[in-house]
């Protein structure tokens, strides 16, 4: 195995009763990389994280973390990884300081030994260090959980939906923290349902219904978008949506904020013909422009196949 590999997953599958949570998942992450698992709730993200952090066993396939097998070397892995589960899992009745000390002690280290790693994050919650974790705000809980996951200086950090339900400003702050952790050489596997966070990862896997739709850098995924993509605006957006969908050459049409995104097979339709059709259907102030797809466009296109 390549010594630069932090996580390696080979044909991992997992079933719960009849539901296939993961189907033949394979990927590798390099050391020091931020690798994003991007997909909606129920896609299998948490199951994958629980297998890699040795909390549950896969039905099939093999996986290694930092070179150790998730089944035979689970004890070694547990020493080396930091895990922030989706649900807040610190001790609510312990204070901020006590939680941090507790996690350091469990891993046979001290807060002082690795303070440099968490300093920037911890300083933001230090004024509340005598407050019980259960009494912290959502944003502060998230920061404390990250500190606790980092205090033993893990080589791989697993963050399961760290930004779900968090407002847009706090989400940005959290990603800034991850970028600075990356510079310290920690590999980060992070999952999120927010497609706009994909561009902040080095590489991403798009996941839906237990399957990876694609693995690549966000840029390459966008580059591989096979259809022509236009944005269309007009005065009556709900009617515009219906009329666009009624047009045979249009493969898909979805609302995207203040415009509709329309996909067309390359060369199947021109903007002029489309505009003429829309004007004929009574639309005013019609504006059509060609745009570069977002990761969300790619996700939708891939899941429509």
């Amino acid at each position, binding site marked *: 195995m390549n010594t630069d590999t932090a996580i390696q997953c080979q044909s991992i599958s997992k079933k719960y009763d009849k539901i296939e949570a993961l189907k033949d998942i394979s990927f590798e992450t390099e050391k020091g990389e931020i690798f994003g698992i991007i997909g*909606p709730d129920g896609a299998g993200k948490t199951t994958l994280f629980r297998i890699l952090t040795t909390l549950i066993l896969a039905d099939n396939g093999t996986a290694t973390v930092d070179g150790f097998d998730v089944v035979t070397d689970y004890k070694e892995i547990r020493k080396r990884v930091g895990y922030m589960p989706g649900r807040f899992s610190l001790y609510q009745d312990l204070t901020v300081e006590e939680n941090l000390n507790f996690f350091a002690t469990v891993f046979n280290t001290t807060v002082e030994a690795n303070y440099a790693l968490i300093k920037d994050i911890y300083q933001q919650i230090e004024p509340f260090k005598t407050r019980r974790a259960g009494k912290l705000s959502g944003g502060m809980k998230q920061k404390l959980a990250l500190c606790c996951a980092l205090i033993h200086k893990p080589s791989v950090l697993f963050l399961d939906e760290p930004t779900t339900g968090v407002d847009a*400003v706090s989400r940005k702050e959290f990603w800034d923290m991850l970028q600075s952790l990356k510079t310290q050489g920690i590999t980060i596997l992070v999952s999120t349902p927010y497609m706009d966070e994909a561009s902040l990862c080095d590489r991403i896997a798009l996941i839906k219904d237990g399957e990876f739709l694609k693995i690549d850098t966000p840029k390459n995924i966008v580059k591989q978008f096979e259809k022509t993509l236009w944005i269309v605006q007009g005065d009556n957006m709900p009617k515009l949506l219906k009329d666009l969908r009624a047009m045979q050459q249009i493969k898909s049409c979805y609302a995207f904020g203040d415009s509709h995104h329309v996909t067309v097979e390359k060369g199947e339709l021109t903007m002029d013909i489309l505009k003429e059709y829309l004007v004929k259907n009574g639309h005013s102030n019609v504006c059509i422009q060609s745009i570069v797809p977002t990761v969300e466009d790619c996700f939708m296109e891939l899941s429509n196949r």
Partner: protein
Amino acid sequence: MNRKILHNADEVIIVENLTKKFGNFTAVDAISFEVKRGEIFGFLGANGAGKTTAMRILCGLSIPSGGKGMVAGYDIAHEQEKIKKNIGYMSQKFSLYDDLKVWENIELFGGIYGMKDIDIKRKTNELMLQLQFENERDKLVKSLPLGVKQKLAFSVAIFHNPQVVFLDEPTGGVDPITRRQFWELIYDATAKGITVFVTTHYMDEAEYCDRVSIMVDGKIEALDSPKNLKNQFQATNMNEVFQQLARKATRADS
């Protein structure tokens, strides 16, 4: 109940200087706004800005410390029970009972809102057709994918034809295609005259609203159509508007 006056009223929500204090902490600080009938009103703000507290008052679940307001024609300080009968509510966290079947959930909610059995039966059939849900009718809700569940939850929240429906982060974690189908259901509801009051962390969804308010530290810092807000803040999208305003926040959520 004087329904005639209610249905002629242009505003389905009116609040003036609405305030809620918890001890020394002012969660909602003298906010004033109106929501027009049939409008989609986006209620945005950072975590801890006071959105949930304000929404609880508007839904008749909490009594304001100060200010006044009407929801669906009833006083928020004195007529909470009447408000509850005239609104719908759904959130990401709680929407339907997992251990009840699809039709059982509908019957339960219809019954709670005092609908007649015959109307519940008729409307259930209509809804199953509209959502193409005939095969799901007898399934337990917990067996449905999240996106499907959320679409059903929204339909149940407006099943009794409320004047206004409150949606608290209805699309969190929902896949991108279903998220858009969900908004199309919202458009259909407003076409029937139902007013929609919605919170979301997806800034592209703010663009679907007729008007948007942004709360920062208990106060409404901006309120206008997405287009006007973008002009006002010289932003290309609502995310930039939000970032400019919410960055000023000094408090986090509780």
